[in-house]
């Protein structure tokens, strides 16, 4: 009996060390030889979707995000500077051992994916949100989103794509900017979000989630 048990353990150990699949299907986050695309498919897809269009709004859509923005955020997770709860609960650990090359490959993979917008939200909120997106809130000196995020919200350099993003994610992140210092890389947004009312935040998020750049 004992011999059989030892044989089983040895067999498992042998399989474990010798019969692994190639790096093309690895889920090892501490192996620099695994490509970013492999990690995107084997690991990131569990929450963000195979093509970067996540299903659950807890997780942001990554499809079509500008490379520069993606890299800034991943490095902020990796060095523990971005400290919003959803960020550190899910992303600090996953990013801790990724190399710059892997991050570049991940950024490139997601930038090439086609974003898919959500279903249109309540028309009244969408209309009010479009005004904020296009014109800002002049009486409070809040600039329009399009000024930095692009005329259609498709993102630009270090400014993320916000068109088609989950409304719930946008609301939560705008609230993080408005109320906390948990995203130091987005200090610019702290000033902008500071005077947005909860209704403003709901409206602009409702507009953006269903918006698809032409």
């Amino acid at each position, binding site marked *: 009996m004992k011999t059989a*048990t030892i044989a*089983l353990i040895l067999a*498992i150990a042998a399989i474990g060390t010798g019969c692994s699949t190639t790096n093309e299907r*690895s*889920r090892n986050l501490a192996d620099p030889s695994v490509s970013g695309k492999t990690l995107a498919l084997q690991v990131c897809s*569990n929450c963000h979707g*195979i*093509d970067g269009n996540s299903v659950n709004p807890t997780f942001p859509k990554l499809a079509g995000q500008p490379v520069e923005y993606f890299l800034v955020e991943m490095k902020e997770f990796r060095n523990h500077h971005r400290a919003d709860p959803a960020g550190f*609960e899910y992303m600090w650990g996953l990013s801790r051992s990724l190399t710059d090359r892997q991050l570049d490959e991940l950024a490139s993979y997601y930038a090439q994916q086609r974003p898919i917008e959500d279903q249109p939200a309540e028309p009244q909120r969408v209309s009010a949100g479009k005004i904020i997106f296009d014109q800002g809130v002049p009486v409070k000196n809040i600039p329009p989103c399009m000024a930095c995020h692009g005329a259609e919200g498709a993102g630009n350099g270090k400014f993320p794509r916000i068109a088609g993003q989950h409304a*719930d994610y946008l609301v939560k992140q705008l609230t993080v900017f408005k109320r906390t210092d948990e995203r130091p890389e987005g200090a610019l947004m702290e000033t902008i979000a500071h005077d947005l009312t909860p209704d403003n935040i709901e409206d602009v998020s409702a507009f953006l989630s269903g918006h698809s750049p032409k």
Partner: protein
Amino acid sequence: MKVAHPLLRGLWFLSVLLAAGSAQAVPSYARQTGQNCVACHAGGQFPELTPYGRMFKLTGYTIGQRTMPLSTMGVLNANKVKLNDPAEGKLQDGSLIFNTASLFIAGKISDNIGGFAQITYNNYDAQNSDSGKWTGHTGADNMDFRYADRLIDAKRDLIYGVTLHNNPTVQDVWMSAPAWGPATVPGSTGTGAALLPILADGLGQQVGGIGAYAYWNKTLYAELTGYRTGNGIFSFMTQGVNNDHGPQTILKGVNPYWRLALTREWGAHNAMIGLSGLDVKVYPDPTDLSTPTDHYRDVGLDAQYQYLLDPHTLTAQVSYIHEKQNLEANLAASNPADTIDSLRAKISYVYHAKYGASLSYFDVHGSTNNNPDSATRGWTPEIFWNPAQYVRVGLQYTQFNRVNGLSSDTDGAGRSTRDDNSLLLYVWGAF
């Protein structure tokens, strides 16, 4: 350090848990992925899995990076049965006791292989019939070792693997599976003394199973597992279990279990509906394998729903199992052909992964000629609080409406169903 009073012992235990947490001592899977418990456990209510937690398990516990694969778990509780049996002592009189402690060896072994092995010390394992004193014992608990691979690209997603485990349905990733729900809190009253279908009880840590499974496009799950007696090559998964509890259950040959599940995610919602079945032959006398066997055929229907969007976590599970028994081999059975039907359901809500409540319903009964009739029915409301992600404090009340197939005079000596009602306070921590 010697602390005599049970309450002081409990407080000391809690303080150790909290101190361990502040030192960032977390279970090994969390160390492996670097993520918080809520990533894998719905609303932080371990062991219930999120969609990501299910993928972590189905891909063989291999996401992340290899770390020290050791974790521990401990449970303190106080259980008060309304009209307690004095012979059961501290298990029923409301005393705060250190109930169980577990060691987990769990984590990634290679890119394709990982495991979960729990070894548990039960502080109240057996009772000396003369002195009434309880003695503790350590034995194998739930174990699941996997090899898994994933073929995934823009057009397909296929996870497939092999699992080696020691408890039917412990390999399942949905909490409606009998091994996981709804009475997962150690020390829970569960369904009382009801005789459950063999799929839900009776074979844990008695058997060894090897199964193959596949999960296609996050939509269809299929599994086929064969169980045999947990001896010989499988004996490491049953060690110490039968120490004070009679001989090991002996199965005849390899016994099949099958499982199908359909799943879907939309927005913050996800749902599963599944079927399962177990066909098993058991020797009525494990010391005499020259006899015919008793034959149990179980078919289960189960479903699960989750809504996961911070700060809300809402989950619901239901499981119905129908068992056909053919006990021709068991000469002691008064009714060779019998059935058992088990219905169990649970709904729970957690706010901010911190404050939660749940309500469970159970109805277990056999065919009319079932003798003895152990049918039970009742409800279990519960409230709980996670002061930290690795500690849960809860209060659970179990109310019986039917005991031993009766709604009154359940022991023939005037005992009412209410007399079996119980209140359980627990502190459950892992680090």
